[in-house]
C-alpha cells in the first residue's frame, strides 16, 4: 500500500537526483508532498528528507524506464525535466508511477491528468525551442558568433543539435540568461557550461552595418496595406523582442543616409578561406 506521507524530498537539482527520489519513493512505499531543489528555499513545517544522489540507484531507475514503459517515455521524462512547470519533479514522479503501473500505454493516456499536465509542459518546451531556432540572433565578435536568449524553459539541450549541424565550421556561444547557462561550440565539439553573466563588447563597423541592413530589410518587407500588429504579436510574443536585432535600434543609431561610404557590401564573412 502506498503511504501518503507528509514528507518533503530535497534533492540536488540534477536529473540523477530526481531519479533517486523516485527510488526512495518506491523503497519507502511513500509519496512525498513536494520535491524541492536546493536553490528554491522554502520555509516549511513538513519534515524534510534530504535525498543523496547515488549513481547506482539512479542508474537502476534509468535502466528500468525503457524496460517498463518504452524509450519514448524516457525521452519524454528527460524533456519534462527541462520544462518550467512548477512542481515538475512531483509531476514526473506521478507520471513514472503511472508508467510502472500501466507500461508503455502510459504514453497514450493523454486524457489522464498526470499525463496531460506533463504533455502540456513538454509541448511548451518544444514550441519555445522551435521558436528560438528562428528568433535567436547572432552577433559576430572576433569571428565568434554570440547570441543571447531568455527562455522560460531550459531549451539549450534541444537547440544543441540544430545549431551544431547548422554551423559546423563556426565557433559560437549561446547564452541562456534565465538559467545562467551557455552552449559553447568550436569545431567539432559542444558543451553546455554554467555562465554567470556575459558582457559583450561594442560591435564593430562591419557588424553594425549588417545589423542595419537587416533592420532595413525587415522594415521594407512589410506590406503597409496589411498592417496587423496583433497578428505579429501572436506569432512572435513580445517577450522575444528584447533580443531581436530588427526590433531594437541602438540609441545613437544613424539613419541610412549616414552610411555614404558604403558603396559596396561591407567586406564580410568570407574569412579568406572559403
Amino acid at each position, binding site marked *: 500500500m502506498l503511504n501518503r506521507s507528509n514528507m518533503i524530498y530535497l534533492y540536488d537539482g540534477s536529473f540523477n537526483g530526481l531519479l533517486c527520489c523516485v527510488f526512495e519513493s518506491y523503497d519507502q512505499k511513500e509519496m512525498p508532498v513536494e520535491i524541492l531543489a536546493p536553490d528554491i528555499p522554502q520555509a516549511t513545517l513538513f519534515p524534510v528528507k534530504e535525498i543523496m544522489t547515488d549513481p547506482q540507484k539512479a542508474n537502476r531507475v534509468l535502466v528500468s524506464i525503457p524496460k517498463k514503459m518504452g524509450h519514448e517515455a524516457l525521452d519524454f521524462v528527460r524533456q519534462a525535466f527541462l520544462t518550467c512547470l512548477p512542481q515538475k519533479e512531483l509531476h514526473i514522479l506521478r507520471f513514472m508511477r503511472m508508467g510502472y503501473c*500501466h507500461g508503455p*500505454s502510459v504514453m*497514450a*493516456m*493523454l*486524457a*489522464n491528468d498526470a499525463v*496531460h499536465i506533463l504533455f502540456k509542459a513538454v509541448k511548451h518546451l518544444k514550441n519555445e525551442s*522551435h521558436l528560438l*531556432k*528562428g*528568433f*535567436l*540572433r*547572432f*552577433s*559576430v565578435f572576433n569571428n565568434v*558568433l554570440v*547570441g543571447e536568449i531568455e527562455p522560460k524553459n531550459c531549451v539549450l539541450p534541444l537547440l544543441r543539435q*540544430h545549431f551544431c*549541424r*547548422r*554551423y*559546423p*565550421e*563556426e565557433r559560437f556561444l549561446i547564452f541562456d540568461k534565465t538559467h545562467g547557462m551557455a552552449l559553447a561550440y568550436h569545431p567539432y565539439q559542444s558543451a553546455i557550461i554554467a555562465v554567470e553573466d556575459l558582457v559583450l563588447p561594442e560591435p564593430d563597423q562591419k557588424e553594425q552595418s*549588417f545589423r*542595419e*541592413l*537587416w533592420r*532595413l*530589410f*525587415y522594415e*521594407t*518587407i*512589410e*506590406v*503597409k*496595406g*496589411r*498592417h496587423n*500588429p496583433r*497578428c*505579429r504579436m*501572436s*506569432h*512572435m510574443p513580445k517577450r522575444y523582442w528584447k533580443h*531581436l*536585432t*530588427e526590433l531594437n535600434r541602438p540609441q545613437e543609431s544613424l539613419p*541610412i543616409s549616414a*552610411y555614404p561610404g*558604403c*558603396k*559596396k*557590401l*561591407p567586406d564580410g*564573412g*568570407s574569412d579568406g578561406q*572559403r
Partner: protein
Amino acid sequence: MDAFHKLQILTGAAKYDVACTSSGVARKAAAGGIGSAEACGICHSFAADGRCVSLLKVLMTNICVYDCQYCVNRRSNDLPRTTFTPRELAELTFNFYRRNYIEGLFLSSGVLKNPDYTCEQMLEALRILREEYRFAGYIHAKIIPGADSQLIARIGALADRISVNIELPSQNSLRLLAPDKSKHAILGPMGYIHSHIKESSADRKRYRHGPKFAPAGQSTQMIIGATTDTDFQILNLTESLYKKYKLKRVFFSAYMPVAENTLLPAMGTKPQLLREHRLYQADWLLRFYGFTARELLDEQHQSFNPYLDPKCHWALNHMELFPVDVNRAAYNDLLRVPGIGVTSVKRIITARRTTTLNFDALRKLGVVLKRAQYFITCGGKTADGMIITRDAVLRALLSEKAWAMYNERFPLHPEAEQLSLFDEPSSCQEDVQKCLTGQI
C-alpha cells in the same frame, strides 16, 4: 548605388510575393560548409503585417521588359531601378544566414533583357552560394516564364523549391492584364518541373546519391480580387494544380492596388483579406482533410460564406452525417467535424485506446468544443442541454450582429411562410392521395 539602397529597392519590389516557407527538406551542413534545413521550416521573424520572414526575399533586378498591369515592377511604372550582382547577393545571403537572421534565400526577378539572361544571372548567384560558400541552407527560386528548359533544369539542381507564378486564375484575366504572358508559358514549365521531380525521385530510389531536383517540390501563387474570377473557379484551379502537377503549395495573395488602371480595382481599394483567408482555409481542407472542391462550393454557390469557415459551413449543410461518436468514429469522419483538426484527431485516436473519452477529456486533447460540441457525442451522449438543429447551431456560433447579417444574405427559408391566425391544413398532395386510396 550603395548596398542599403539596393536592398531597399529590391526588397520593396519583392514583398508582394507571398511564399516565404522554408519547409519540405531536411539536411545538415556538408563538411566544411554552412547551413541546414528542417523539414518543418523555421520562421525567423514576423513583419509588422503579421507575415512570416523566413527567407531573404529579394529580386535579382526590378528592371522588367514586361508590362503586367497588376505588377509594381511593370515597365511603364516610373521607379528607381537597380540590379544585384550575383556575388553581392550571395555575400549578403551568407552574412545574414551566419547571424541566424534567415533560413535561406528567396530569389525572384524582373525580366532583364530576356528570360534566359535573367535566369543565367540567378543561376550564377545560386552557384556561388552552393559551390563557393558551400551553403546548405534553403533556396527558393522563381522561374521566369519563357526561360529555356535547360536553365530550369540547372536551377532545379541548385534550389530546394522552385515556383512558377500563375498570377491570374484564368486565361481571360491573363490576356487582359498580363498580355506578355500566356497560359502556356506558365503551365509549360510547371509540367516540365513536375516530370523532372518525378524522374529524380524515381532515380534516387535506385541510386542513393542520384542528383536531387527541387527536393522541396514546386509551388505557385495567384492574385485574388484583381479580376472577376470567383472562389469556385479559383478553388477548382487549385485542386487541379495539386492533382495534376503535385504542387506542394498554392499561395493566394489579396490584390493590393499598385496602379491606376480602368481594368483593375481603384487605388485605395481595401485588399480582400477575408476572402484570401477563406481560400487558405479551403486549401487546407483540400490538402489535409480529404475534402474536394466540389463539396465546398458549386455552380450555385460560387463564393465562400463570409461569416462561417468553409468546414463549419459544410457541416451545417450536412447535418444528416452528424453527430459522430468520438469513441468510435473513423479517422476520416472525425476530420470532418468542425473544431477538430488533424492534431486533435490523432490525439483522440491515441487516447481512446486506453480510456473512454468524455467532453472534459476532449478539452484536454485540444478540441475546440465551442464548435465541436454540436457535432459530436461521447459514449452516445451529447453535451448537456444541447439543441442540435441547423438554426440553433448557427445562432450559437455567430454573434448577434453576424447572425442578422447572415440571415439577410442567406435566407434560411427562401419562401418563408406567412404567419397566419388560422391553421391551414398541412397535408400535401401526396398525403391526400394516400388517404383517398387507403394506403396509409
